[in-house]
């Protein structure tokens, strides 16, 4: 049963081949058996899952239907889930049981999903290897000595290992797409404002966006359909109707114009990944697409701009974790300053502290213009690059990552090397456009991902291209050995 996609589960449940409770029990057992190798869960919510599963079965028995009714999923552990530990994989949220549900959690729950647990991640979503978690590193099911990518590494590893058919993730600089690429999944970061951020604990508010990771584009469409939409509780969510993503899947690709940015194929890219990307291009041509080279000239500035803006926002967003009202508080503080310094000093991990310090510095009096303001200007240039490019092409295609999944610990002492792994993904966050990563084959037994980018609110187009590709290829149904 664990091999089923969401779409297959929907059919199985509708045809009464199995119940949601049976499926849930089977996956819970699988998690108990296999997750110790992966460490993809922070919390398994067995009781909640079983009650949701029986409720979903009852709803079906009452004649209700729905693609996600009774479908088991997991949430990245920065989505607030009422009365369940919501940790952001940080010591500082020790014991924090959220008093409310995130909008995404609420929407998926009302669609009938069954929450199997809360998934591991980089602490506060800061990282691209899932090694900065207070709850320990997550392993890549394709090679347990390698990283699954991050920051949604737990979500990726769990879905890739067939512990779950789909999971939520968030993407601030590539945190859905990059782990999807490194674990052979399909993952989509929607347009900024498409998915509500209410209850999604912020890393960098102007970049964060929630989205799904699943094995197929179709499953991503099912998930995103339930997750997306305007939310009055999030002022940055956009009041625009949600497209019918499932309907978009089946459109033929005849006449699709694909742009290949030359900057995505330059130095730094593992040539073997480049080759895989080109085989995808060939396949899409066969499906009727045309291809042209384009340029995104300001891409080279994206990483420095991102590593000013994201830490700047994070330094402010993370100020509320002060040991006063919730989460971790140091033992026996002697005074207020001691309470702050030790609670935060002991509660945050090294990467989080690094980014808080970088961001604090970037916003300081006398430096603001040189860093934050300049980064915002670069951001505008990057956005303009995309707007110009989309005059000529419908989607932009390239590698999701420059490298294959690396060894655990390999880049721990070189944060800049790790930051460079985001080179192809962060521009979409800076510009706010949607991006998707899909499986494109294997190099040395390790998955390779291809990234597709589209204009604002054209998630349907991305899912359509990926789905059509997945109709003629089988990379996405390959499972890691042992899972």
């Amino acid at each position, binding site marked *: 049963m664990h091999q089923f996609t969401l779409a297959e589960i929907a059919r199985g449940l509708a045809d009464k081949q199995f119940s949601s409770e049976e499926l849930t029990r089977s996956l819970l057992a699988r998690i108990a058996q296999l997750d110790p190798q992966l460490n993809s869960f922070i919390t398994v919510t067995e009781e909640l899952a079983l009650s949701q599963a029986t409720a979903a079965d009852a709803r079906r028995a009452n004649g209700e239907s729905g693609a996600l009714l009774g479908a088991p999923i997991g949430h990245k552990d920065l989505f607030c889930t009422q009365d369940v530990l919501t940790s952001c994989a940080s010591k500082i949220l020790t014991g*924090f049981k959220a008093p409310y549900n995130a909008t995404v959690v609420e929407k998926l729950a009302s669609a009938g999903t069954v929450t199997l647990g809360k998934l591991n991640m980089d602490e506060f979503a800061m990282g691209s290897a899932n090694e900065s978690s207070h709850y320990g590193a997550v392993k890549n099911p394709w090679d347990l000595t390698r990283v699954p990518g991050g920051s949604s590494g737990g979500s990726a590893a769990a879905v890739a290992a067939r512990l779950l058919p789909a999971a939520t993730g968030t993407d601030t600089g590539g945190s859905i797409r990059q782990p999807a690429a490194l674990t052979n999944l399909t993952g989509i970061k929607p347009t900024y404002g498409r998915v509500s951020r209410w*209850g999604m604990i912020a890393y960098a*508010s102007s970049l964060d966006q929630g989205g799904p990771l699943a094995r197929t584009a179709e499953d991503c469409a099912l998930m995103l359909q339930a997750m997306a939409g305007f939310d009055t509780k999030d002022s940055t969510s956009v009041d625009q109707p949600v497209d019918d993503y499932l309907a978009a899947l089946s459109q033929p690709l005849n006449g699709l114009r694909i742009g290949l940015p030359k900057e995505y194929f330059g130095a730094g890219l593992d040539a073997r990944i480049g080759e895989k990307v080109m085989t995808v291009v060939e396949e899409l041509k066969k499906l009727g697409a045309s291809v042209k080279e384009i340029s995104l000239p300001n891409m080279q500035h994206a990483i420095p701009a991102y590593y000013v803006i994201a830490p*700047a926002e994070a*330094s402010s967003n993370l*100020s509320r974790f002060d040991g006063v009202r919730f989460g971790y508080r140091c033992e026996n503080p002697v005074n207020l300053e001691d309470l702050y310094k030790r609670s935060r000093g002991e509660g945050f991990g090294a990467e989080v502290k690094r980014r808080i310090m970088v961001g*604090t510095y970037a916003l300081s009096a006398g430096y603001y213009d040189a860093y934050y303001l300049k980064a915002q200007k670069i951001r505008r240039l990057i956005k303009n690059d995309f707007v110009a490019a989309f005059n000529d092409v419908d989607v932009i295609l390239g590698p999701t990552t420059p490298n294959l999944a690396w060894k655990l610990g390999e880049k721990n002492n070189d944060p800049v090397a790790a930051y460079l792994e985001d080179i192809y993904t962060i521009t979409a966050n800076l510009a706010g456009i949607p991006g998707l990563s899909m499986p494109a084959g294997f190099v040395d037994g390790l998955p390779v991902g291809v990234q597709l980018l589209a204009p604002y609110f054209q998630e349907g187009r991305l899912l359509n291209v990926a789905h059509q590709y997945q109709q003629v290829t089988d990379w996405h149904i390959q499972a890691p050995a042992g899972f």
Partner: protein
Amino acid sequence: MQWETVIGLEIHAQLSTQSKIFSASAIAFGAEPNTQASLVDLGMPGTLPVLNAEAVRMACKFGLAIDAEIAPHNIFARKNYFYPDLPKGYQTSQMDHPIVGKGFLDITLEDGTQKRIGITRAHLEEDAGKSLHEDFHGMSGIDLNRAGTPLLEIVSEPDIRSAKEAVAYVKAIHALVRYLGICDGNMAEGSLRCDCNVSVRPVGQAEFGTRAEIKNVNSFRFIEKAINHEVQRQIELIEDGGKVVQETRLYDPNKDQTRSMRSKEEANDYRYFPCPDLLPVVIEQSFLDEVRATLPELPVEKRARFEREFGLSAYDADVLAASRELANYFEAVNTVCGDAKLAANWVMGELSSLLNKDNLEIDQSPVSAEQLGGMILRIKDNTISGKIAKMVFEALAAGEGASADEVIEKKGLKQVTDSGAIEAMLDEVLAANAEQVEQYRAADEAKRGKMFGFFVGQAMKASKGKANPGQVNELLKKKLEA
């Protein structure tokens, strides 16, 4: 050396919206701690702000009332600092792009002259919570009911030159925000708070001296005292060869002194940056037009009208226009009695002292505008004298009658204007004071003037104040000089 004082004020006016600026919590004063604090106000992880449109409307009202430019795009920024009653670790405020730009307010000085005070800007922000230190041994409690309450911070230009001017300005702002219905102005509850930036410089010097900021002065009286004290401190410091340092000071009303709170060096670097959780606020002209249409007659306009229409002095007009309620009361009295001068005198005199004595607001007045107006009518038609009117007024205040007429009737206070009756009464008075009458008649003109008052007093006493004073004067003179 002659010194000149330079003052700029920052006034925080709590907007009287139903709910907080970024959450749906109520903002009533005095609720049990933390009962008006939602997930957003508590700074719970994952929560987000949603701007209260009513706060924006109120800020626009204020901006229009001070002839300021309203920014079509204004932006919320985060002011970052750690404090236990600041749940998010930052205050959401406005920095580079405030909603209200440059404007001005005309104030009336004690001598009746007008002075224009520039207003640099006014911006929206959220209030912090409160730390409670009393009830928690060795610990502090935090009450977040106030956290997220909408504030309009009104920043003046350094145009103010004395403590008295400062008070006049604060009173004018106080009146304005109450007229506009955007703030209840209750200073005791902290609805209107004032930070005073004070410096001194030798008269004639163009550059400003170094300023000190006195935080959170919460009454008109304390504003005057705190500034006067601070000015004195700075002058003495400089004259003794010292230097004023830029710092934040606190005023202690019990000791009547200011003391240093933190120096410029200790000041936080607030690391302002645009709040990424809120979109820029876009204000369209049509919205402003709509808000403008709801503006009431403003204090300045009302003051001018009172002078023009009723011939009141600048001072009287200013006092009566100070609050919308008082002005309405005065106008109601005037409508009944048709004598603005008398109406003004009674409202500002007897009525004000009555209210002051019992610490009442004008809308709690035990004497209604109709009652007071009706009573003034009886003064005008000579039914009662001004002196008797005070008795009638007191009786009305004590609830001893529904109208002045009823009180006059019941207490028999009607003025005696029958000259026969007055003459008879005067004859009695003169007979009882025969000795004084002789002295009077023997005295020269100058002495007579003084002695005349004695007989008037005796006569009024004998008539229990009811005799018409004009007639008493006239007839008395005739009789004494006969």
